[in-house]
């Protein structure tokens, strides 16, 4: 289990360095996904499986879809087709898939081969987190719901299409 931490930490560090050092946005996006997955594995090792699941679902799922969508959208133009061919060349995904294969091997080791009961560590269950969320932390839940609503309204306002006559387009 200890080696799991060190390997996952090494994968996280390497993929994070690749995120900031690649000049192509799509390459660094692939490495960012690897970094988030390795951080999820680290949460798992840390005894917070609920946060690990949320990390994969929200970060590596929803937020990354937004990033991919925006990168696709900002690369409009005649060079799009050639760029798209270049994006998914073997060189682009070879590095991330090697790192992800390491993470998957670790996950399989934890699931089947690993020592499951490690020093009586306290595992944070989803139930206690949920009870705390709607108990002492209910005010912050309300605040973050307002924050998300504000983000939604702002995104709609900024992203609306404007006609030449200054009127908003009716959907």
């Amino acid at each position, binding site marked *: 289990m*200890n080696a799991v931490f060190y390997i996952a930490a090494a994968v996280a560090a390497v993929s994070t360095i690749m995120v900031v050092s690649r000049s192509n946005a799509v390459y660094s996006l692939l490495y960012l996904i690897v*970094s988030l997955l390795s951080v999820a594995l680290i949460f798992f090792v*840390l005894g917070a499986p609920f*946060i690990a699941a949320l990390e994969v679902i929200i*970060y590596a799922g929803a937020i990354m879809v*937004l990033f991919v969508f925006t990168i696709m959208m900002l690369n409009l133009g005649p060079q799009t087709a050639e760029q798209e061919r270049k994006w998914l060349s073997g060189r682009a995904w070879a590095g991330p898939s090697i790192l992800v294969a390491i993470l998957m091997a670790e996950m399989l080791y934890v699931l089947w081969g690993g020592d499951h009961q490690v020093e009586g560590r306290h595992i944070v269950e989803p139930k206690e987190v949920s009870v705390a969320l709607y108990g002492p932390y209910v005010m912050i839940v309300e605040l973050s719901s307002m924050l998300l609503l504000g*983000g939604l309204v702002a995104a709609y306002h900024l992203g609306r299409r404007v006609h*030449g006559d200054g009127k908003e387009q009716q959907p």
Partner: protein
Amino acid sequence: MNPLIAQIAAHSPGLRDWLALTSVIFSIGLYGLLTRRNAVGILMAVELMLNSAAMNFVIFNRFCLPARMDGSVMAIFVIAVAAAEVVVGMAIFVALYRYRGTVDVNQMNTMQDPVISIEGPGDFNREVMKNINKQYKSRHDH
């Protein structure tokens, strides 16, 4: 087995190891934040920094309050804040790209009409914005 690898494998990660990892990730994110010129890349670096902050919450929860789960709750809020931030940031970048045809932050140092000339969808939208500005002026000038 190599003795160094055996020693690393037998060494139980303590608070210092975890914090070293999060500070490494945070520093790399800060470096990316300062050096990237693509706005989307800057947002990615901010994501990395937020991620390491959430990790810090969970780590301190485990080592300082092992019987409680407040760190996990705060990590959930950090993730929610990151989601809201990404949504608004992406909307801003899309709007900027429509108007200026680029998301290079070096060319965003002016709040007024850009003087750079760019081919692409920015031209059309600049016409649109000029029209809107004219109408706005005619409504508010008298």
